[in-house]
């Protein structure tokens, strides 16, 4: 079990670090979006009028170019001239000033997949229906958030598989960690910062692992169940006949047509349906706003409209769906209360995706995520420290390599994060493909951090602290403060203004950046003191004698 914990933890720890850190940032992804796209710094809006605002925009939407290119590859040739509309949908939460709108278009000439389709996506200002420029990258919800579960490795979903495996390793590391640790309750509150580095690092590793154990466990597990259909594609492979038959039967039973009829028909007033859905929610004693709205088989006589309640006051994201005939506007079906199994699943999904309105809990999630990151980082340092003490070339080489990677994943990741924010404020808004440039800055600065860590790592082989830690800490401190200053200079939204007007999405993120800068500077100074003290490694036997776990 120790072997499993050490080696799988080391190798997948780099991935877990990304998942935990960017997952923590994703708790405030919408707020980071506001920071990065100043035009959208206004109050959250409810779902606007479908008939007046959304329909004209939906009608003008088109499939994304990249999706069309991918579809051409799947089909192995040109796509049909007409791609029939399948669905329109819109999703919003209590934190969204802007509204995301999606459309699906059928690809009718793929013999391998009769349900093949491509997507269109726009973001609008719901107050006036104006489109947001496509080039603007939502750094929170479109970059950090997907990074934490897909690593932005799109090819064959490989990123999802890597992160999924890392989540399994996280669970296994928790189980094996408990087995190895044994004194879970007796040492639950034990942290001895003044003891030797190896001891205090291990204390911190145990503390952050044990104290937030339920958080770590359920986030790794729910991360897996959320993407279960990717990891276990039963319905798409061996269970496909059963799945399709069930879908058709289900459509018959519920009255929600599985396929379009082929007869065109206009769409009735969706606004009237929204009013009826809200009335039904209020009758059930859970009045609320619309979270998700979807029109299936758009423009067809079989079309239906599904309206889901935003789960701001619940753990589950959306629910209480009411389905209407798209043609008559009459209710076809009101979803019954979910079964026990679905409730558990909705709860697990909802607790991870956290679209509820509870700011304390959101901050607790950040704390939990950062404790996860600390747990992994201290695991790295413990690994390095243990090998630093060992005599012989093999141990030194292992230590140097692992340390450079640890620097890259800890401070290097922070540098990349701060760099994309600085780039966001420095690059002009009119720059073509601005988002692509920002992403490039992110990856290149991370790569530079790796190069720097590898170059400065010589000290580790001699049993000392790599100066890369300190130098990168200073870089983080400078970049994070620069981001705050640049936000002020380029938008005029300085902290006094955002705090006094109570615009917390931007004020909160600025404060978090300053906090991070302060911590990084503090860490850099502490590292300096340690380096000055320049204690060369103590002989191995002394540590062995002190550490009961060795």
């Amino acid at each position, binding site marked *: 079990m120790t*072997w499993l914990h050490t080696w799988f933890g080391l190798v997948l720890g780099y991935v877990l670090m990304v998942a935990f850190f960017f997952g923590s940032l994703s708790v405030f992804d919408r707020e980071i979006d506001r920071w990065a796209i100043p035009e959208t710094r206004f109050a959250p809006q409810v779902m606007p009028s479908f008939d007046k605002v959304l329909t004209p925009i939906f009608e003008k939407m088109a499939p994304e170019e990249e999706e069309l290119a991918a579809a051409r590859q799947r089909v192995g040739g040109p796509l049909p001239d007409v791609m029939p509309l399948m669905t329109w949908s819109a999703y919003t939460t209590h934190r969204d000033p802007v509204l995301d709108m999606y459309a699906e278009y059928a690809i009718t000439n793929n013999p391998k997949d009769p349900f093949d389709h491509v997507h269109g996506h726009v973001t609008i200002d719901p107050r006036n229906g104006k489109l947001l420029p496509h080039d603007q990258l939502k750094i929170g919800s479109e970059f950090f958030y997907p990074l934490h579960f897909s690593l932005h490795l799109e090819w064959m979903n490989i990123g999802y598989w890597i992160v999924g495996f890392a989540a399994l390793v996280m669970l296994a590391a928790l189980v094996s960690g408990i087995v190895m640790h044994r004194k879970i309750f007796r040492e639950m509150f034990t942290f001895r910062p003044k003891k030797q580095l190896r001891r205090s690092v291990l204390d911190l590793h145990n503390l952050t692992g044990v104290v937030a154990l339920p958080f770590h466990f359920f986030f790794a597990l729910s991360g897996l169940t959320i993407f279960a259909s990717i990891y*276990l594609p039963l319905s798409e492979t061996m269970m496909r006949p059963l799945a399709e038959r069930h879908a058709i039967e289900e459509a018959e039973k519920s009255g929600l047509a599985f396929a379009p009829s082929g007869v065109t028909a206009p769409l009735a007033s969706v606004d009237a349906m929204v009013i009826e859905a809200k009335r039904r929610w209020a009758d059930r004693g859970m009045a609320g706003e619309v979270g998700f709205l979807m029109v299936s088989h758009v423009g067809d006589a079989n079309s239906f409209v599904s309206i889901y309640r935003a789960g701001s006051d619940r753990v589950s994201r959306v629910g209480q769906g009411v389905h209407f005939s798209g043609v008559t506007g009459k209710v076809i079906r009101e979803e019954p209360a979910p079964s026990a199994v679905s409730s558990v699943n909705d709860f697990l999904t909802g607790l991870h995706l956290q679209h509820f309105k509870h700011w304390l809990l959101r901050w607790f999630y950040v704390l939990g995520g950062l404790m996860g990151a600390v747990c992994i980082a201290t695991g790295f340092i413990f690994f390095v420290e243990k090998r630093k003490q060992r005599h012989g070339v093999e141990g030194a080489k292992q230590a140097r390599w692992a340390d450079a990677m640890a620097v890259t994943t800890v401070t290097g990741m922070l540098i990349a994060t701060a760099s994309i924010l600085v780039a966001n404020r420095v690059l002009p808004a009119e720059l073509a493909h601005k988002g692509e440039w920002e992403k490039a800055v992110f990856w290149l600065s991370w790569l530079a951090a790796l190069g720097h860590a590898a170059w400065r790592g010589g000290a580790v082989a001699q049993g000392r602290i790599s100066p890369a830690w300190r130098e990168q800490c200073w870089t983080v401190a400078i970049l994070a403060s620069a981001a705050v200053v640049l936000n002020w200079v380029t938008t005029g939204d300085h902290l006094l203004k955002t705090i006094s007007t109570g615009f917390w999405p931007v004020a909160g993120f600025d404060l978090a950046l300053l906090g991070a800068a302060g911590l990084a500077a503090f860490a850099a100074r502490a590292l300096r003191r340690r380096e000055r003290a320049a204690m060369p490694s103590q002989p191995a036997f002394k540590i062995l004698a002190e550490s009961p776990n060795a």
Partner: protein
Amino acid sequence: MSSFAVKPREILSRIAAGVFGGYAFMWGFAMLCVAVGVFAGVDYDEALTFAYLLAFLVYLTAFCWAFAEASLTRVWIVLAGGGALMTGAAWLIAGNLH
């Protein structure tokens, strides 16, 4: 545990058993859950969700066990063999559902 840390080939085999054998076992388990569930009259989606909720805990158990069990042969037989057996059984049940 320490016995297999000696031969690199055995380490690789054990890792493969934990990762791929464990996955095969989870796959078979999930298939069987759905097939048996639907056979017993449970709604397909319901059975699938149930399988998804348990599948990763099954994988976790299989994965950890692959590193705790002394006999590597037994690990392979139980995980890969068991996975294949459950998948086959589920396949037969699903094929006969009408």
